[in-house]
C-alpha cells in the first residue's frame, strides 16, 4: 500500500521539487518584480476596487498571496504548492473519469507542467495558477456529486463562481459542458447541461447589462486578460485549451486497447513530458533579468554599497545595472570618484535612462537622487494612476510630499502604507515626520534631498542635461547635480567642458577634486599644456604620477590597442583615461536587449 502511494505521489513530488528549485535558485527575480508591481492593502477601499470586475476576488486573493513575495523562499514554495495541488486534483479528475487507468495519468500532468513553464515568465501572475486550481476544484466537485439536489445547487451557484473567478468560471463551465456532452447521456444529465447553459447565459447578461459597468471583453475575459501575460501568451492559451478538453482527452486515451502496457507507456510519456519541460525551463532562464532584479532589489532596500561592490566585481554591460551603479555612487557621494571602476559602456544614457517614460519606475529614483523632488513625485503619481499603488511609488509619494511639506497628503499615503504587510515599519519611521519640519530637515535622506531642491522655479524639460543645468542654476550648491553633470561630460569625453566647469568646485565646497574629474583635468592639461582655472583647488599629488604610469604603460605597446587592452592592470583600466582612449558607447539601449522594454 505504502509503495503504491509513494509511486502514485512521486510525480507530484518531483513536480513540486523541480518547480521550487527552479523558482528559488534560478528565477527568484520574478518574485521581486511582481511584488513591486502591486501592493496589497488591508482596507475596504482596496477590496471594493476588486469588486467592480468579475474575477476581482480571485485577483484580490492573488494579491494577498503576492505580498509574501518579499521572501523568495515563500514565493517559490507557494507557486510550487499550487501547481502540485493542481496536479493532485487533475489526477483525481482523471481517476474519476477513467477509473484509475494509469494511461490517462500523464494527461493530468500536462496542465501543471505547462503552468510550471508559464511561471518562469516574469509577467505570469499567480492568479492564473489559482484560477486553474479553483476551476479544477469546481470540476472535481461536479464529478463527485451524487445527489441531484447538490447538482442543482452547484448549477445555481454559478453566478457566485462567476463573480469570484471571472474567466476561470467560464473555463470551468466549458470543461463541465464537454464532460456533460461526452459522459452524461441520461435524461437528468441533459437537463442539467441545459440548465447550466441557461444559468450561465443569464449570469453573463445580468452582469453585463445590470450589475457591472464593464465592456464585454472584461465581462468574459477578466482576470485572464488582466495582465500582459494573459493577453499575449500562447502557452497559457494552450494550457487553457488542454484544461477545457481534458474530459475529451481522457475519453480518447481510454479507448479499447489503450490499457495494453499502460503503465510502461504512461511512465515513458510522463518522463518525456517532464524532460521537455526541464529543457524549456533551462532555455527560459534569463541571467540578465535576474541580475537586474537583484540590483533593483538592493537599491530599493538602500543597499548602495552592495550594488557598488557587486558591479565592480562583476561588471554588467546592461544599462539598467549601470544606471543603478551610478545612482548608488551618487547616493554615496562617489559618482565622479568611482564611476569608471565599473562598466560604463552604455555611455551617458546610463545616468538618467534619457528620461525614458517607459522606465519611469526607475528614473523617478534618479530625479529624487539629484533633488528634482517634484519630478520624482510627478512620475510616482503617474505610475500610481496607471498601475495602482506599488511599494516604491507609494514610498516615493510619501517622501516627496514630506519634503515639500504637504503633510496632509503625506498622511493619506502613509495611512495606506501602514495597511500593508511588508512596509509598516517604513510607514512608522516616515510617519514620525508628519507635521514636523525639523525632523524632515534633520533626516539623513529627506533632509539632504530638501537641500538639493531648486530654489527658483522652472519647468521640467524633456532633455535631462538641460534639467541638470536649470537645477544647478537654481541651486548652485547642489553637488549631486553637479557631479551628474560632470559624469555626463566625462562619458561624453568632453574634457574642454570639464575644465571649464571645474572652476565652480571651490565655491561648491569641494576641498579635493573627485578622482575622475582630476583625471580629466590632467588629460586636459596634457592636451592644452596648461591647467584650467581651479579657483584655488589643487590636484592631488598621486594623479600626475598615475597619469605618467598610464602613459608609459600605453606607450610600451607601440599603438597595439588589443595588446594594451589586454595588458593594462585593473587600476589603469579603472580610469577616465582608459575610457577616453578605449571606451566605446553601444547603441540605443532599447534596441540592445532581446526581450521587452519594461525590464531592460
Amino acid at each position, binding site marked *: 500500500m505504502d509503495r503504491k502511494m509513494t509511486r502514485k505521489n512521486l510525480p507530484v513530488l518531483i513536480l513540486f521539487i523541480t518547480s521550487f528549485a527552479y523558482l528559488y535558485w534560478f528565477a527568484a527575480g520574478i518574485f521581486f518584480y511582481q511584488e513591486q508591481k502591486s501592493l496589497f492593502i488591508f482596507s475596504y477601499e482596496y477590496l471594493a476596487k476588486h469588486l467592480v470586475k468579475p474575477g476581482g476576488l480571485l485577483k484580490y486573493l492573488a494579491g494577498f498571496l503576492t505580498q509574501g513575495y518579499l521572501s523568495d523562499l515563500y514565493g517559490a514554495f507557494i507557486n510550487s504548492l499550487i501547481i502540485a495541488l493542481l496536479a493532485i486534483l487533475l489526477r483525481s479528475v482523471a481517476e474519476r473519469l477513467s477509473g484509475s487507468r494509469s494511461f490517462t495519468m500523464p494527461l493530468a500532468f500536462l496542465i501543471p507542467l505547462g503552468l510550471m513553464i508559464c511561471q518562469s515568465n516574469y509577467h505570469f501572475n499567480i492568479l492564473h495558477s489559482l484560477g486553474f486550481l479553483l476551476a479544477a476544484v469546481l470540476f472535481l466537485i461536479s464529478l463527485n456529486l451524487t445527489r441531484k439536489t447538490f447538482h442543482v445547487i452547484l448549477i445555481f451557484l454559478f453566478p457566485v463562481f462567476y463573480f469570484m473567478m471571472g474567466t476561470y468560471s467560464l473555463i470551468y463551465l466549458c470543461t463541465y459542458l464537454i464532460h456533460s456532452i461526452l459522459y452524461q447521456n441520461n435524461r437528468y444529465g441533459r437537463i442539467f447541461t441545459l440548465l447550466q447553459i441557461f444559468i450561465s447565459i443569464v449570469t453573463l447578461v445580468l452582469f453585463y447589462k445590470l450589475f457591472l*459597468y464593464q465592456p464585454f471583453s472584461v465581462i468574459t475575459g477578466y482576470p485572464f486578460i488582466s495582465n500582459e501575460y494573459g493577453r499575449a501568451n500562447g502557452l497559457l492559451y494552450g494550457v487553457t485549451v488542454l484544461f477545457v478538453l481534458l474530459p475529451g482527452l481522457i475519453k480518447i486515451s481510454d479507448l479499447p486497447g489503450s490499457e495494453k502496457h499502460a503503465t510502461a507507456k504512461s511512465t515513458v510519456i510522463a518522463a518525456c513530458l517532464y524532460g521537455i519541460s526541464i529543457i524549456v525551463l533551462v532555455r527560459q532562464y534569463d541571467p540578465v533579468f535576474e541580475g537586474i532584479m537583484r540590483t533593483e532589489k538592493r537599491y530599493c532596500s538602500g543597499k548602495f554599497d552592495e550594488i557598488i561592490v557587486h558591479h565592480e566585481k562583476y561588471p554588467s554591460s546592461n544599462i539598467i545595472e549601470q544606471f543603478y551603479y551610478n545612482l548608488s555612487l551618487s547616493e554615496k557621494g562617489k559618482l565622479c570618484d568611482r564611476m569608471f571602476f565599473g562598466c560604463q559602456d552604455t555611455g551617458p544614457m546610463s545616468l538618467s535612462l534619457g528620461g525614458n517614460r517607459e522606465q519611469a519606475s526607475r528614473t523617478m529614483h534618479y530625479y529624487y537622487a539629484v533633488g528634482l523632488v*517634484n519630478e520624482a513625485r*510627478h512620475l510616482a503619481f503617474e505610475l500610481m*494612476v496607471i498601475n495602482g499603488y506599488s511599494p516604491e511609488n507609494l514610498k516615493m509619494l510619501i517622501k516627496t510630499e514630506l519634503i515639500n511639506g504637504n503633510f496632509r497628503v503625506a498622511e493619506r499615503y502613509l495611512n495606506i502604507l501602514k495597511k500593508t504587510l511588508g512596509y509598516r515599519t517604513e510607514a512608522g519611521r516616515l510617519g514620525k515626520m508628519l507635521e514636523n519640519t525639523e525632523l524632515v530637515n534633520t533626516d539623513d535622506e529627506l533632509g539632504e534631498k530638501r537641500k538639493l531642491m531648486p530654489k527658483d522655479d522652472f519647468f*521640467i524639460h524633456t532633455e535631462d542635461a538641460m534639467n541638470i543645468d536649470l537645477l544647478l542654476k537654481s541651486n548652485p550648491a547642489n553637488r549631486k547635480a553637479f557631479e551628474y553633470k560632470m559624469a555626463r561630460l566625462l562619458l561624453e569625453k568632453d574634457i574642454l567642458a570639464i575644465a571649464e566647469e571645474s572652476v565652480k568646485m571651490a565655491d561648491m565646497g569641494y576641498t579635493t577634486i573627485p578622482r575622475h574629474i582630476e583625471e580629466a583635468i590632467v588629460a586636459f592639461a596634457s592636451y592644452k599644456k596648461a591647467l584650467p582655472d581651479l579657483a584655488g583647488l589643487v590636484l592631488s599629488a598621486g594623479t600626475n604620477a598615475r597619469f605618467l604610469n598610464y602613459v608609459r604603460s600605453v606607450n610600451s605597446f607601440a599603438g597595439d590597442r588589443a595588446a594594451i587592452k589586454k595588458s593594462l592592470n585593473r587600476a589603469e583600466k579603472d580610469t577616465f583615461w582608459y575610457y577616453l582612449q578605449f571606451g566605446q558607447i553601444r547603441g540605443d539601449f532599447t534596441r540592445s536587449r532581446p526581450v521587452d522594454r519594461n525590464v531592460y
Partner: protein
Amino acid sequence: MNLSVIGSVIFATATFIAGCNGIDIRDIQPANRQPAIEPDYSGITIPYNIAPMNFRIGEEGKKFLVRISSSNGICNKIRSSDGNVIFPLKLWRALTGNNADSIEIEIIAVNKDKKYIKYSPFSMKISGDSVDPWLCYRFLYPGYETWVEMQLILRSTETFKEKYFIENQLLERNCINCHSFNSKKAERFLVQVRGSKGGTYFHDGMDLTRRILRTDNMKANVVYPSWHPSGKYVAFSSNRTIQSFHMKAGKNIEVMDLFSSLLLYDPDQNLISPVSDRDTANYMETYPCWAPDGKYLYYCRAEQVMEGFDYRKIKYDLARKRFDSDTGEFGPAEVIFSASEINKSVSFPSISPDGRYLVLTLHDYGTFSIWHREADLYLLDLQNMDIKKLPFNSNETESYHSWSSNGRWIVFSSKRLDGLTARPFIAFFESPGKTGKPFVLPQKDPTLYRRLDKTFNRPEFVPALPASEARDFMKASAKPPLKARWIEK
C-alpha cells in the same frame, strides 16, 4: 439667551445624561470650547433637503454621546464608540424639516478614566431654500498626464446615492472632459470625450448622439462649453493647450493656452461658426458663459501669446458680447472687469440665475486656476460692476463653481482640506452681505475625504436626473459620429 433658558438647557442636559446613563453630573467637566469635528460643520448654513451631515469627532474619548436638538422641537441622541457620528436619514429629515431653522449639537466624551468632558455646543443654520437634488462631477485622480479610471458621477445631494453617469471603462478608457447641462432645460446636456470614442455627446432630450465638432477650419478642438438658455446654441471655446511641470516646491502643474477662440454651435442644424469680431486676432478667448437671459456672452480674454512668452505675464480680463439669438449675431467686445490692471487673471465666469451676480475665479496669472493655490472666488455685481472677494475662500485653491437653480447655493471646488484634491463645497448665498459658511458635500462615511485620493472635478448642480446613463454612452459611441459643418457668419 437669558439665564432661565441657560438654566433649562443645563437642567435638560443633566437630566438627559444622568437619565440615560446614570452619570453623576458632578463628574462632567466642561471643556469650555467647541469640539474638533471633521469635516468642519460648525456654524455652517445648510439647505433643509441636504443629506445627513455625518461627521467625525476629532477628540479623544472611548465613547461619545451626541445630543442633537432642532429648533422645530425634535431632540435626539446618538452614541458613538468610534467617533463617527452617523445620522439615520429619518432622524435627519425630522431634525431639518418642519420649518426648522437651526440644529444644535452637543458632544460629551467619555475618556479612558471614565471621566466625562462636555464640549460647548455648535450649531448649523438651516435654510428654507432647497438645493438641487443632484450634483454632477468628474471623478478622477488629481493627475498630471495619464488616466485609467474616470467617471462622471451624479450624486444625490439629499441622500448618499451615486449613479455613474459615464464610466470610461465602457468607452475604451477614454478621457471624459467637460460636461454641461442646459440651465433651463436639464434634459439637454453635453459631455466631451477624448480618445478612440472621442467627440461631443449631445443629449437633446430625446436621443444621445456623438458628434465631431472640429472641422478643418478650426485650429483646435472645442473645449469649454456653455448652453444658451434657449437650448438653441452652445458657445464653445476652442483651445490649444499645453501643460508643464513646476520644479519648485509648492507648485505642481501649469496649464496654458497657446491659442483659443470662441465658437457658436447650433445643435439642431449641426452647424459651427466662429464668434468673430475685429479684435479676435489679437486675443485668446476662453470660458464662455451665457447670461441667463441669453442676451450676453461673457468670457475671459488675454492678449495672444507670442513665441517665447512668459507664462506669468498672461492675464485674462472678463469681457462680454451682446448676442441676438434671432440672427445669431454678436456685438462688439466689451471688457467689464480688467483683472490685468490689478495684475490678476480671471477664469470661470458663472452668472446667477437671476442675472444679477457673476462669480469668477481670480488668480495671479494664466487660465487654469485649479493648480493655483492663490485662486479665490470673487463676486461681480453686474448692476454696478462692484467686485468683492467672497467669504468662502481659504488659503488653498478655490475654483470651478456653479449656481443652484434657485440661485441660493453655490457649489465650488476647493482644495482646502489637503492642498491637492478638490472637494465640492456648498455655500449659501442670498446677497453679497448675506452668505453662509461653506460646507463640504456630506458623505455617508465622514472620514472619506481623508482617505480618498481622487478629486471631484467641475461640480455642477443638476435639477433632475438626466434621461441617459453610462451604457447609453457606450451605445452612442458605437455609432458613426455626426460631423459638424462649418459656417462663416
